[in-house]
């Protein structure tokens, strides 16, 4: 069993080493590429030998199994093996050299990984460069290694491979009246595997197209951008066909346009801009390396891509139009779709939850970029007051602090933390007066994490009950609203900052899990920034919802379809602390994350006819607060809802315009009892939208019970009513019954 597992892992590692050259882990693509390398039998064989060697050594030395399995330790060795295999005459000597070359390449890979990880940069094919250069320079002394003439006499090889028929086929292919540049494109693609023939390029192109439409379109765009630039500057492009260099443009284009950056108009634009640069670098490096009589291989690609990724990372402002990929997905398309659906998720995961610093319903008197004092370096702050039903903030005439509704109200810690700074001893101002000398008044700064502090200000003198260094829990009372400092009437000033001083520059940071009530409508925010005059209050967490949608690793769920118990699901987590629900029987998986505010399903893997997919669709985005008829929305990856042909079409245009949308909506409609409910009812739906028109809507009626059971009712494709219930299998121990 264990052995079988190991062999399977090794097999995965080998296959992925092939597709990884195109940043892919697609098995079919890998098999195609594997076949392409064997177009030159010996090169293919030495490539395989090299991959095997590198991966086996990686396994034996005990590197991270997942990295090995992804082929990340193998693909550089593969390239070295292929390059060496094609250049020299096969034989025992070459075999030995390839094995040692693979070992060397692996070590360089691991070392570079370690060095570059600090900068969060990939090592791309730099290990291959070092490996192949080392071999080539060294072999000048290795007299027993004979230079191979293969790759030059294509016909001989083809004949040996497939007889006369293949030669004829190839001839027909080569003489097809296609543009010269198309031929060079295919040759360049093939050149990635040191194959100097169009067939290799064609097969690779097919594989690339199968793997990713975006990668394919980028390869085309990248190549022709370079081609046009060559023409412009009057360089001879056809030379590329013989020098294994044209692929630099293709790989650079895929990496910059779609793999390390979320594919978008901007990423495509940058691709087009960067390719002439790549051409220049290629040309100039060629002369430098000519001194040692070695090829530059993929050096321009490595330089440009690393440079660009690093430059992007050093930006100080977020740019939604050109975003580097945060979590690498299997294809650029997935990255793109998940980026669009998961913007909210990324936010949720990146932000530390900072709750409102008070209890009950308050009004925002001044928000970010306020008209009074929230300006410039201090613009990201809020001022809160309490208003009555007539919009007044005080009773009687408002001549005294105590007339103001917010005065002396408790101020609570917005999140757990350590008290970092306190000022106290500043008396309340008379109404209308301000204390400009002690601007901030009595304040408390809490440290919530490194470079994350919150500050409340204008508190009442002597009301601060915490001391510097105290640990506070979320919701602990830290002081009372007062009227000290720059405060003409009692209000609570709240801001986030990155330094621990009272009055630090503010930080643009959202607040967590609150509702805004406007015109009898309630809007629920997981993270958001209330605006001026908004009435905000902390979201009330519902017991039934937070019980039913609390999925801790180890929780087991029994699925009941139309009254019959079917499969069981289990909640698990991986080493990256990513939680998922898995159905081992049907091999389906839902990735999710949850917090106090809701349960958010982020990704689904597996059969789309399964119960789990229904669960995913119906409960894609559920909140743990019950606000009747408040709608929460989300967008689900379109490729889960639209069929392949339409999706392929969409993939090509996805970086520019996504015309296929699957919009999710959920609203809670009923609670049987406000105080001690037995169940909550909800309705959810997913609308499939093409070019803004709703083509189909899947509707679900959901009931969530006190026991944690969730029932989903829907009509299937044949309009038959179906019911799926998800029941937690958890043993409750009732001490009262012991």
């Amino acid at each position, binding site marked *: 069993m264990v052995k079988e597992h190991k062999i399977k892992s090794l097999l995965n590692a080998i296959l992925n080493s092939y597709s990884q050259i195109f940043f892919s882990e697609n098995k079919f693509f890998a098999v195609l590429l594997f076949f392409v390398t064997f177009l030159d039998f010996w090169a293919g064989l030495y490539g395989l030998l090299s991959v095997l060697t590198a991966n086996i050594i990686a396994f034996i030395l005990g590197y991270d199994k997942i990295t090995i399995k992804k082929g990340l330790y193998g693909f550089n060795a593969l390239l070295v093996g292929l390059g060496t295999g094609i250049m020299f005459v096969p034989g025992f000597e070459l075999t030995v050299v390839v094995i040692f070359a693979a070992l060397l390449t692996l070590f360089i890979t691991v070392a570079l990984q370690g060095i570059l990880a600090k900068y969060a940069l990939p090592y791309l094919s730099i290990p291959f460069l070092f490996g192949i250069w080392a071999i080539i320079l060294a072999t000048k002394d290795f007299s027993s290694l004979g230079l191979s003439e293969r790759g030059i006499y294509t016909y001989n090889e083809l004949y040996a491979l497939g007889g006369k028929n293949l030669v004829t086929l190839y001839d027909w292919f080569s003489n097809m009246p296609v543009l010269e540049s198309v031929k060079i494109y295919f040759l360049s693609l093939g050149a990635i595997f040191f194959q100097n023939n169009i067939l290799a390029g064609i097969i690779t192109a097919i594989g690339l197209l199968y793997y990713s439409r975006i990668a394919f379109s980028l390869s085309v765009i990248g190549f022709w951008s370079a081609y046009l630039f060559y023409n412009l500057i009057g360089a001879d492009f056809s030379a590329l066909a013989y020098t294994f260099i044209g692929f630099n443009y293709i790989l650079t284009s895929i990496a910059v346009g779609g793999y390390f950056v979320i594919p978008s108009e901007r990423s495509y634009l940058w691709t087009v801009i960067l390719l002439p640069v790549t051409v220049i670098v290629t040309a100039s490096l060629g002369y430098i390396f000519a001194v040692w009589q070695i090829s530059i291989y993929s050096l321009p690609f490595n330089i440009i891509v690393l440079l660009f990724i690093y430059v992007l990372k050093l930006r100080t402002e977020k740019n939604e139009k050109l975003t580097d990929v945060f979590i690498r997905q299997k294809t650029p398309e997935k990255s793109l779709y998940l980026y669009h659906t998961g913007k909210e998720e990324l936010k949720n995961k990146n932000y530390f939850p900072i709750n409102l610093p008070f*209890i009950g319903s308050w009004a925002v008197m001044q928000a970010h970029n306020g008209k009074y004092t929230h300006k410039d370096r201090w613009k990201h702050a809020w001022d809160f007051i309490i208003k009555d039903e007539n919009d007044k903030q005080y009773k009687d005439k408002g001549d005294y602090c105590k007339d103001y*509704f917010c005065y002396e109200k408790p101020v609570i810690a917005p999140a757990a933390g350590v008290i970092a700074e306190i000022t106290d001893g500043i008396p309340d101002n008379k109404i209308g007066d301000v204390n400009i000398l002690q601007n901030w008044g009595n304040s408390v700064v809490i440290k919530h994490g490194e470079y994350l502090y919150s500050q409340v200000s204008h508190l009442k003198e002597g009301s601060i009950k915490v001391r510097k260094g105290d640990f506070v829990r979320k919701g602990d009372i830290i002081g009372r609203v007062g009227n000290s400092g720059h405060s003409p009437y009692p209000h609570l000033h709240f801001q986030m900052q990155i330094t621990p001083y009272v009055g630090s520059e503010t930080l643009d940071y959202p607040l967590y899990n609150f509702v805004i009530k406007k015109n009898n409508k309630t809007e629920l925010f997981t993270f958001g920034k209330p605006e001026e005059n908004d009435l905000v209050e902390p979201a009330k967490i519902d017991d039934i919802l937070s019980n039913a949608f609390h999925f801790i690793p180890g929780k087991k769920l029994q699925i009941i379809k139309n009254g019959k118990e079917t499969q069981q699901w289990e909640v698990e987590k991986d080493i990256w602390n990513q939680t998922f629900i898995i159905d081992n029987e049907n091999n389906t998986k839902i990735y999710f994350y949850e917090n106090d505010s809701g349960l958010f399903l982020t990704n689904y893997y597996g059969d789309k006819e399964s119960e789990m997919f229904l669960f995913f669709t119906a409960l894609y985005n559920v909140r743990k607060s019950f606000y009747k008829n408040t709608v929460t929305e989300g967008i689900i990856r379109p490729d889960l809802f639209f069929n392949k042909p339409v999706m392929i079409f969409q993939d090509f245009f996805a970086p520019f315009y996504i015309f296929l949308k699957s919009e999710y909506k959920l609203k809670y409609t009923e609670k049987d009892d406000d105080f*001690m409910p037995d169940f909550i009812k909800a309705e959810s739906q997913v609308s499939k939208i093409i070019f803004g028109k709703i083509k189909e809507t899947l509707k679900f009626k959901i009931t969530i019970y006190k026991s944690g059971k969730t029932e989903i009712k829907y009509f299937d494709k044949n309009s038959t009513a179906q019911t799926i219930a998800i029941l937690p299998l958890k043993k409750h121990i009732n001490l*009262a*019954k012991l």
Partner: protein
Amino acid sequence: MEEKLKYERPVITKINAGMPDKFGMQAKMPVITEIDEIPVKKLIKQYGSPSFIISEKTIRKTFNEAKRAFTSRYPKVQFAWSYKTNYLNAICKIYHSEGSWAEVVSGFEYDKAVANGIPGNKIIFNGPDKSKEDLIKATENGSYIHIDHFDELYELLSVSEKLEKRPKVAIRVNMDTGVYPQWDRFGFNYENGEAWNALNRIMMSEKMDLVGLHTHIGTYMMTPAPYAVAASKLAELAVRIERKFNHKIKYIDMGGGFASKNTLKGAYLPGKDTCPTFDQYAEAISGALINSDLDPNEMPTLFLETGRALIDDAGYIVGSVLANKRLADGRRSMIIDTGVNTLFTSFWYEHEIYPAKEAGSHSEDTTIYGPLCMNIDIIRSAVKFPLLQKGDSYVIKRVGAYNMTQWMQFITLRPKIVLIDTKGETHIIRESETNESLTSHEKIPDYLK
């Protein structure tokens, strides 16, 4: 045409300059000429004298003030309207529209709440008098039954055996909160272990769901401190119940008893200066709960059944002077058309009474009598009051609580109750009684006919 100057009889009073008395130097009585911008004169003309006038605006304003005081200090708060304080259907419905549940203390009040459209699961059933039928009804409707004594607990246990639904119960707990007299006639005592005895029986019986803890420490509490004591004792009880039975209490009901701004007889200073504000009560209660050992992530809901403090201010009586008279000792007395039969609370309050139009600037010690032919019918035994003439109008403030439930039909008939809505429209919410309304319930044996 200019109004004719009013004739005032000459009065001789001792000049007492220098030392102000407890009401300060003020000699001139303020007047109340209108209620919610409607002239008192018009109200009397339209609805008769006397009439109860209730301001919906004040009800809602006071309710929101109380709600704000608590919700800005404690995360989960639920008010329940104390029916006995004022159970006129219109009034109850105003409170229900603000989100209040119903707190009832008898089968009659229970049915009234149901008739007002309150679902069973929003009714709290208090009091020592719940019949077997009441208990069955409350259980089946899913109401919250606050058990007052062991006999009720036994009855509920026997009742629940035959019912499909499990009763949702709380026990009322009485305790020493440091005030005298200690209210120990309702519920189970905390200090002597009776409360635990009741809790153990409920938990071990497994026939009912213990969902809350209730206390009501007294009435007209002039200081918030005892509420803090009571709240921390109930919180402590809730924590120990969880430890012992692994059972979470869903709510803590602090009852009512908040003082209104009326002045109790014998009080040295006026109530409006001495009685705590909602903020002070809220601070005491929520502070005690938040500082207790209760799990901050799963705090029980705070129930409040305050009645008096919410409605007292909204009620007025408008009426007319019947006569003026000199008493034997020379004191002035005034007879008005509101008696203790109508203004029941004048037995314990020094109600504020004001002229309804500009009166003379000279006040004289006056005894104000009601119209009853009964010696006890005194509205104010001694009040500095300007001279009003027969037929002049007056306004009595803060009569919203208890009067419209405890009033008596005695000697005279009970007057109209008028509601001024938030838009300033008036509505009769209870008609004045007629002979017919009383005699219709009477029966005459045949031989007397």
